[in-house]
């Protein structure tokens, strides 16, 4: 059974991702918090790979991820853990760097995992410092664009209900 990812924008400053995984929660937690496992799936757009994954998953702990793109582009993400409650919940600050540019203002990411009947339900809420920062993140995906049209209306509205 294939699960679909839903992306919604419930407020002006948030993006929310929801997804189901066919695995018990402790496994999903491990895959999302252990560097050796994170490195195997958290890539980015086609052609990007994760090159650095330092993760101190405890309150006050820091993390630093870095990726490199097919043309040698560099991107990194750093932040500090605010809440860590295995295997259910993580809240952390996040800040992107692209080359020498640093994102204006931190975002706050809240990951919640719940388990039901051997499935894990993921909700990732990212709160941006401003609406512009949020829209900028969404716009950055346009590079990898494929035409989407009016026929997608149902999906977008359903995802936002």
């Amino acid at each position, binding site marked *: 059974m294939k699960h679909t990812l839903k992306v919604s924008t419930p407020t002006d400053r948030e993006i929310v991702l929801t997804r189901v995984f066919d695995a018990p929660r402790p496994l999903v937690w491990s895959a999302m918090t252990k560097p050796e496992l994170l490195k195997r799936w958290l890539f980015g757009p086609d052609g990007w790979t994760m090159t650095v994954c330092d993760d101190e998953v405890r309150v006050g702990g820091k993390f630093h991820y870095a990726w490199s793109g097919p043309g040698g582009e560099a991107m990194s993400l750093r932040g500090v853990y605010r809440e860590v409650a295995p295997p259910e919940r993580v809240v952390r600050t996040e800040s992107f760097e692209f080359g020498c540019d640093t994102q204006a203002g931190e975002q706050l990411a809240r990951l919640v995992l719940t388990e039901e009947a051997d499935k894990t339900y993921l909700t990732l809420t990212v709160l941006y410092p401003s609406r512009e920062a949020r829209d900028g993140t969404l716009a950055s995906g*346009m590079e990898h664009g494929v*035409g989407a049209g009016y026929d997608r209306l149902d999906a977008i509205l359903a995802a936002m209900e």
Partner: protein
Amino acid sequence: MVDNLAGTDIVNQMVNNLSPTLDRVFHALAHPARRRMLSHLRDGERNLTELAAPLRMSFPAASKHVRVLEQARLVRRRVVGRTHLCRIEGQPLAQANQWLENYRKVWEANFQRLDELLNELKAQEKRPRTSQGDRR
């Protein structure tokens, strides 16, 4: 977690080029009443009273929400006599949707790799133990 997935130039360019319209589109979509209205309008043109009724809203309150949708160019309103007829407009929504869809695709690719990894981890857990040392 990771969600900003393009290089500096692209991001800057996109942020600088953010059309005020798109900004308004996301703002308009951020309210559940307005999403219900859009949903309702997918079935065709409706007057303001018809839009207000399922939301248990007054005419002026509904009119205010429709104005936000109009400003985002998601809805066009025409007034015939005393009736305000509203119609959905697809273009800005399609553009906003394209952003969401592209963003979703990047994450979906990540999560599909995560699915595979989880399957592998599950298989490892099920494997009968021959000795403790064999398990990772």
